[in-house]
């Protein structure tokens, strides 16, 4: 039996959940504090964070890595180190306004809550030593980045032109995509956003992938059509699958 898969669009969110494994090594994203006493470093908490370029097949998300603008609702990590090692030790990072930038002490993650500029403070114990300003942005849409497909398939034929993929596989087919949140000027926003994945008919198309890895593995079932949807708040993406014989 030949199963036909028609993908009209596949959008994978930069999604992650609270149990994500540590993300792989990433380019340093640092900024010096306003007093030139500390250096603040951004870190991804999940491979789903657009700031982390974890897939060699994907184009670099940024040519360089200035301190990123961060999506509201996204999780990320911040650390601080002294500019001069002899001046301070064991710096921590705190938020000036928890209503704008929340911090979970247990996970060590920050979460943007409101769009705007918010300051963070480098502290040694309870003593602040430096500060920096972060930019939190409400994402306005998704941008789709497409990589080469991988997976276990037989007789596959992949057409990447026009943003539409056609493929056939006997059992399963794997595509690799990443959907990132962007703001009005199309700038990519950093941070790991929580998302929800659903399949309208798991018997036709069952989603077996781990969302935090940004890999979608669709396993065909009986003949029919199904829609796999990824959503985060008002932002959604979907893929229509038609399994034929």
């Amino acid at each position, binding site marked *: 039996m030949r199963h036909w898969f028609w993908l009209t669009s596949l959008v994978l969110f930069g999604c992650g959940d609270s149990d994500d494994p540590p993300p792989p090594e990433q380019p340093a994203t640092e900024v*010096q504090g*306003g*007093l030139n006493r500390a250096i603040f470093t951004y870190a991804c908490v999940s491979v789903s964070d657009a700031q982390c370029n974890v897939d060699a097949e994907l184009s670099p998300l940024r040519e360089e890595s200035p301190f990123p*603008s961060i999506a509201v609702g996204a999780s990320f990590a911040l650390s601080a180190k002294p500019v001069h090692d002899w001046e301070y030790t064991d710096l921590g990072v705190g938020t000036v306004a928890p209503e*704008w930038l929340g911090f979970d002490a247990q996970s060590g993650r920050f979460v943007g809550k409101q769009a705007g500029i918010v*300051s963070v403070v480098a502290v040694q114990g309870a*003593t*602040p030593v430096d500060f920096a300003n972060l*930019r939190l942005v409400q994402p306005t849409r998704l941008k789709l980045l497409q990589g080469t497909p991988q997976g276990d398939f037989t007789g596959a034929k992949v057409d990447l032109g026009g943003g539409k993929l056609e493929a056939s596989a006997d059992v399963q087919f794997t595509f690799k995509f990443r959907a990132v949140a962007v703001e009005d000027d199309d700038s990519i926003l950093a941070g790991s956003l929580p998302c929800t994945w659903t399949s309208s008919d798991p018997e036709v198309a069952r989603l077996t992938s781990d969302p935090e890895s940004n890999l979608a593995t669709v396993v065909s079932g009986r003949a029919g059509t199904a829609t796999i949807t990824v959503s985060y708040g008002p932002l959604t993406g979907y893929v229509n699958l038609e399994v034929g014989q």
Partner: protein
Amino acid sequence: MSTRFWQGLLAASASLAMLAGVACTTAAQPELDYLVGQIGEGYEYANWTPIDPRYDGVKFDLGVGLELKEAIGVKLSTSPYWRDPEASSPTTLYGVVAIQSSAPDVVSVFSASPTSFVLLAHAPGETTLSFSITGYPGSIQAPVKVTAATDFVDVDERQNVETRPDAGGDAAEGDDDAGAGDDAAATDAGSSDAETGDSR
């Protein structure tokens, strides 16, 4: 030398001593009565009234106060002076400036240098910052208002102000802050009100 010489010298000395005593008891004592401020890092999130916008829009009288945007930090440099009534320009005072906030939940502060500080605006409201300087009496009370981010309007009149040396003695020396610090973290240099909710 004759006795008359020594008598005259003694009389002159006594006169000088009396004159010095009178002068010491009536001369004004230096005190902190004028404090000039300048915002560095985070200047786009603060509003103030310049001392002389015709020549220098970045320096302001802290006794007049300033406005800060909610949830941000700014660096404030200070220059303490004494307005000597017998001098044509304020006299610079040298020492460590101390600061205290009457409402730390609105604005908290920490020291950056002997004369500069970081102001952290935590939430909308009002507070008074009290400044004093070691070695001198007097203090300056600076009213500070923290405005909600959605209501804050960045007043740009202090920018693009022509500056020139003031022959009359510019009151403010300040430390080495340039007043145009980079926005530390994000890609928001100079356009702080691009995000949703800010008004112009």
